[in-house]
């Protein structure tokens, strides 16, 4: 009797699914590291729950954050998620670098299977649960403020997207404690990930985490695009939008059209694995080439989803810290659009070697090189923006400068790889690994960090510590070069990527340098956390309540820091680009409106957390073949959606008197603040009020 009950309840779970049990049965270093990682997740989860309970913060978190539909809070939660996931994936990267440095003609300390799980989770997390949440969070926070709106077009959908992403990230963490992850890399190529070769739960974790995440991202893209089309304040014409809004729009359009191919690819792979279909199997007519097409039809636009928002951040940062309007605004807009369109025409360059004809390769190679042109236009525009500007080397500006130099280098190696005959030689080597890290670390991570430093004072009302910011910056840059330049050399010498053991002693010095670089990158991350800690401790000395610490240009700087829940007491009206910069020089930027009005905002809703949790539960049930759990989770999603559609009391009103009190408090802070010149921006004298040089 029990023999039939337990499999129905627990699916394919058994005790050896737990890494602790595996480490007990087979105490190798590799298994103990796995169990240690699982223990960290478990203890961290218990610790967080205990702390929240100890300080009785559940109610506060639930009411003010988890159920909040405020785009600013949702944005911050996305970025918190990004930092958590960045920490895990960076530690994994360090482990891999150390393994390769240690495993020269010896097996090293990680088993091949464990190593394969590490590169699979590292890639999947960095793309889907670090980069995507980071940029989504930044756009969420900043974009509505920049277009003079009180929220995004669909606040509830925004919350649902957040919790779907959060649920998917949670699934990634659970895979560390229960079962194992895929060994098929972040791109999950079949037929290796088919049942015939990977019958375990790993690829299923990968499939469902990505599927949940991609549905969340599709809905996010939809939400942002409609927000930008429909919610701009009067006078905010398309060609008056800050460049960050433009790049957000292009990234959103890419999400709308490029996430569905990923959903299709993972769904068809799931059909193969769960129901025995034959899309990508070796037998009965399956065709894995179709998977490569579907996956990279998503995968290449995805690169630009990641990079375009960072381009937007750089445009804002370079312009602000050079005190000049963007040089070539129009060309930047067109270049962004050109990149967005061209990004759909180059996907085959990810698999030049898979056997299509030379003509097809040539077309896609040329298209790939063509993308270099609009990207070059952008670099020139940023350089010319700085030319004869009043450049200040703040932390965001340092990231922008490091980006420009490093990214161009990565671009050159990209042009090399775009050349199919050369790609045949470098394909699947560390050269490629060096190339895409050379694009994504400056082109995404530096951009996100620049944005984090730049808008942090707006979000929290105080500046981040300069000294630790510079230390972190130095570590990111030095660590990057140390970790990845050797990989170019090794890749050119023919070292395959994803290699657990190396058999050529001549590679030793390069692998050591790369390993050292990875440790420096870990220091960079640690410095960021130290910086956050130090900044919070000294927050009172670094307050910028008046809201404009950098002599800012866009509407987001025209309100208090942190902004009130309703963003703008009265919807602004703009008549040119850089409206706030302009009004500071021609009028009174802080004049209160003639009259305040009641403001309607969306009430919080538990639909987001419920749907996210139910979605993750469904996914977990599917991974472990606990069908009852999957059905229960799916029913919960359906019931939640239908129940929510019956809700009618979904708005709250902030009455005019309260708006007036809030605004008056801020305006008196503005009146009390001492204006500072630009050169004083980085000192404690900065209270968020810019002195306008005559």
């Amino acid at each position, binding site marked *: 009797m029990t023999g039939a009950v337990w499999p129905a309840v627990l699916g394919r779970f058994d005790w050896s699914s737990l890494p602790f049990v595996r480490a007990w049965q087979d105490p190798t270093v590799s298994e103990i590291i796995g169990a240690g990682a699982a223990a960290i997740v478990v203890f961290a989860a218990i610790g967080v729950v205990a702390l929240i309970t100890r300080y009785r913060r559940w109610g506060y978190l639930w009411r003010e954050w988890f159920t909040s539909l405020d785009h600013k809070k949702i944005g911050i939660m996305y970025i918190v998620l990004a930092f958590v996931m960045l920490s895990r994936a960076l530690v994994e990267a360090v482990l891999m670098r150390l393994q390769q440095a240690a495993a020269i003609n010896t097996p090293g300390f990680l088993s091949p299977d464990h190593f394969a799980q590490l590169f699979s989770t590292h890639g999947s997390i960095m793309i889907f649960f670090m980069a995507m949440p980071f940029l989504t969070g930044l756009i969420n926070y900043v974009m509505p403020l920049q277009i003079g709106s009180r929220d995004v077009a669909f606040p509830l959908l925004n919350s649902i997207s957040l919790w779907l992403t959060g649920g998917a990230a949670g699934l990634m963490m659970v895979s560390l404690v229960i079962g194992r992850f895929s060994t098929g890399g972040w791109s999950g190529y079949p037929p290796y990930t088919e049942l015939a070769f990977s019958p375990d739960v790993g690829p299923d974790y990968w499939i469902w985490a990505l599927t949940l995440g991609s549905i969340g991202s599709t809905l996010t893209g939809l939400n942002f695009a409609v927000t930008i089309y429909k*919610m701009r304040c009067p006078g905010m014409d398309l060609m008056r939008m800050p460049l960050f809004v433009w790049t957000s729009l292009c990234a959103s359009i890419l999400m709308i059209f490029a996430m569905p191919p990923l959903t299709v690819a993972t769904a068809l792979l799931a059909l193969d694995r769960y129901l025995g279909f034959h899309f990508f199997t070796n037998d009965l007519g399956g065709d894995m080439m179709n998977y490569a097409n579907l996956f990279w039809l998503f995968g290449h636009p995805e690169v630009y989803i990641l990079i375009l928002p960072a381009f937007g951040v750089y445009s804002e940062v370079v312009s602000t810290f050079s005190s000049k309007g963007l040089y070539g605004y129009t060309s930047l807009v067109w270049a962004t659009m050109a990149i967005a369109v061209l990004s759909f025409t180059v996907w085959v360059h990810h698999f030049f070697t898979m056997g299509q004809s030379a003509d097809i390769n040539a077309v896609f190679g040329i298209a790939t090189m063509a993308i270099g042109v609009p990207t070059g236009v952008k670099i020139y525009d940023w350089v010319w923006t700085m030319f004869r500007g009043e450049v200040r080397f703040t932390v965001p500006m340092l990231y922008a400068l490091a980006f420009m130099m490093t990214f161009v280098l990565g671009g050159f190696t990209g042009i090399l790889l775009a050349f199919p005959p050369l790609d045949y030689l470098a394909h699947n080597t560390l050269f490629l690994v060096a190339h895409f890290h050379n694009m994504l670390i400056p082109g995404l991570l530096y951009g996100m960090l620049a944005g984090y430093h730049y808008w942090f004072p707006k979000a929290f009302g105080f500046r981040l510590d300069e000294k630790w910011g510079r230390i972190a910056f130095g570590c990111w840059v030095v660590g990057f070069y140390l970790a990845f330049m050797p990989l170019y050399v090794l890749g050119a010498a023919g070292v395959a990527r994803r290699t657990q053991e190396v058999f050529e002693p001549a590679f030793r010095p390069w692998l050591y340098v790369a390993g050292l670089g990875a440790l420096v990158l870990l220091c960079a991350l640690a410095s960021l956390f130290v910086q956050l800690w130090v900044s919070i401790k000294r927050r009172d000395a670094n307050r910028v309540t008046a809201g404009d610490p950098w002599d800012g240009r866009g509407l987001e700087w025209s309100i208090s820091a942190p902004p009130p829940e309703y963003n703008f007491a009265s919807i602004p009206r703009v008549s040119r680009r850089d409206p706030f910069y302009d009004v500071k020089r021609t009028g009174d930027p802080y004049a209160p409106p003639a009259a305040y009005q009641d403001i309607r905002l969306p009430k919080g809703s538990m639909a987001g957390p419920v749907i996210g949790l139910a979605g993750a539960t469904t996914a977990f049930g599917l991974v472990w073949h606990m069908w009852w759990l999957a059905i229960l989770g799916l029913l919960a999603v359906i019931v939640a959606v239908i129940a929510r559609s019956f809700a009618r009391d979904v708005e709250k009103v902030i009455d005019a008197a309260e708006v007036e009190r809030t605004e008056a408090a801020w305006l008196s802070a503005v009146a009390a603040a001492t204006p500072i010149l630009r050169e004083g921006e980085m000192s404690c004298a900065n209270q968020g009020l810019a002195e306008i040089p005559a």
Partner: protein
Amino acid sequence: MSAGEVIPTGLDLGGASQSAPERAATGVQGFWVFLMSDAVIFALLFATYGVMLSRTAGGPTPAAVYKIGPAFIETLILLTSSFTFGMASVTLNDAGPRRRLFGWMSVTLLLGAAFLGMELRDFGAMFSAGAYPTRSGYLSAFFALVPLHGLHVLVGAVWMVVMMVQLRVFGRDAQVMLNIRRLALFWHFLDIVWIAIFSVVYLQGLIR
């Protein structure tokens, strides 16, 4: 910009960023964008179907398993349901009793159910003829594409029931009106997808 200026239309906005008609327009546009994203999914499944068409792996071929007669009747049923939903949309703004709106929506719902019933019977016939999805790449592609459309129709039907209940509970409030407009878009979209399925899958299958 000037932070000090209240927009002249401020009174109309009533403290919201958008007026009621603007909100409805935003709501509808968002749904259009969703449909376009959904269209990409169907487009890719059509492309996959095209790639897999010849991969019958020695199993049943399209010409052997498709029955054009039932598929044609299903097409007529679905097209008619689009017409009846169109009539429902026409009566949506009528001031009078909701009876006609209910009537048209009920007819649409029945036609949708009839379509689903017939489609299920078709699938059953294919299964018993040895044409099931695990047989070949071609049949896998067929059973990913066509039932996904059916699943959409099912979702549309459930949505229709929910909207009819909400009409009873809330009357024609702004949210109900907006969601019926969205449902209408969804229903017509499924019709268009079916036309593509009928042409690309069933008609093409006739070519021997």
